[in-house]
């Protein structure tokens, strides 16, 4: 006999053996909170949007940023800020739309794809922010090089000593180094949080994809 047929025979006999849950217990259960990964993804994503928005406000009001106000920088920073907000709204809209599409009554594959898509939106937003930050840094450096008197005089001293290349190289390397460390820490957290949260989903999604080949 086919192995599974034997199993099926027994499987059907088991129906009476399950401990029955009463209607009363079902009422209690539906009042409880879900602990599904979709809920966690939603919470973490909202926190991320909040964090990045907060971060951009915070950086703008920072003392160093105010010192920066003295320079003629509006031509660059205002378009960058406006662009930042437009893109935030765009990403948030995408996130919300994708999140709404997640439905537990879809097929397993579609459900997984929608969850991964929602996740990807937030991930792209964070990558966008990192890129945006790098661009802003470059813009800030450019304005500093161009307009900051203290900086220019330092550069001139360096030039007098014949070290002008070293001076610029050092400044740029330090800024790049700080950005790289910041990015690496962020990526590590990403890998940790989503690695744990989505491990099972990714594994099962791969398995389903494998069947399609």
């Amino acid at each position: 006999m086919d192995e599974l047929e034997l199993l099926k025979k027994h499987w059907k006999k088991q129906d009476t053996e399950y401990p029955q849950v009463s209607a009363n217990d079902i009422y209690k259960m539906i009042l409880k909170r879900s602990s599904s990964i979709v809920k966690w993804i939603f919470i973490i994503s909202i926190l991320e949007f909040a964090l990045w928005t907060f971060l951009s406000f915070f950086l703008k009001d920072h003392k160093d940023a105010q010192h920066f106000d003295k320079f003629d920088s509006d031509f660059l920073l205002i378009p960058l800020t406006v662009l930042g907000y437009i893109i935030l709204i765009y990403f948030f809209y995408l996130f919300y739309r994708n999140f709404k599409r997640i439905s537990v009554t879809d097929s397993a594959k579609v459900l997984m794809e929608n969850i991964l898509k929602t996740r990807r939106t937030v991930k792209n937003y964070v990558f966008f922010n990192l890129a945006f930050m790098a661009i802003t840094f470059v813009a800030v450096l450019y304005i500093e090089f161009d307009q900051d008197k203290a900086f220019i005089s330092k550069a001139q001293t360096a030039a007098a000593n014949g070290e002008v290349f070293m001076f610029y190289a050092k400044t740029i390397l330090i800024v790049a180094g700080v950005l790289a460390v910041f990015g690496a820490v962020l990526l590590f957290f990403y890998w940790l949080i989503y690695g744990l949260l989505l491990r099972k989903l990714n594994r099962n999604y791969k398995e389903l994809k494998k069947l399609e080949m």
Partner: protein
Amino acid sequence: MDKELEHNFVALLEEHQNIVHKVCRLYTNHREAHNDLFQEITIQLWKAYPKFRGDAKFSTWMYRVGLNTAITLYRKSKRTINTYELDIYQFKIKAEDYDDTEEQQLKLLYSAVHQLNDIEKALVLLYLEDKDYKEISETLGISEVNARVKMNRIKNKLRTILNP
């Protein structure tokens, strides 16, 4: 209206609860985890219920939500299988129904099924429940041909485990 919805849902779930138990039985390996998954599936069913339309059978709809919860949404990690617990919880096989070899085979079969991955378990569950390949393929989102091929592979896999 909400009360009525709630009442209908609870009555339907109470009647069809064995479907949820079956999903839990395949995807968990001790009673505590079984109850936990049962609860999460119940919550997901309830959240999706307002959109449930009578055009699908309630039981078909339940398999889908139940499996999706077990495969995708449920977050808790699995505990390593404890043979003792498996014996008392999973494989209550009555000796009088089967002869010794069959009983032994059943035990092996259940533990073999537990070693399958999440997707394979879903196929086995739907197969054991006599679902046709059309329903299996729609539930998982794969083609009917692929569902058949995979099912045959699973059968071979189980055969190898039983007859090494």
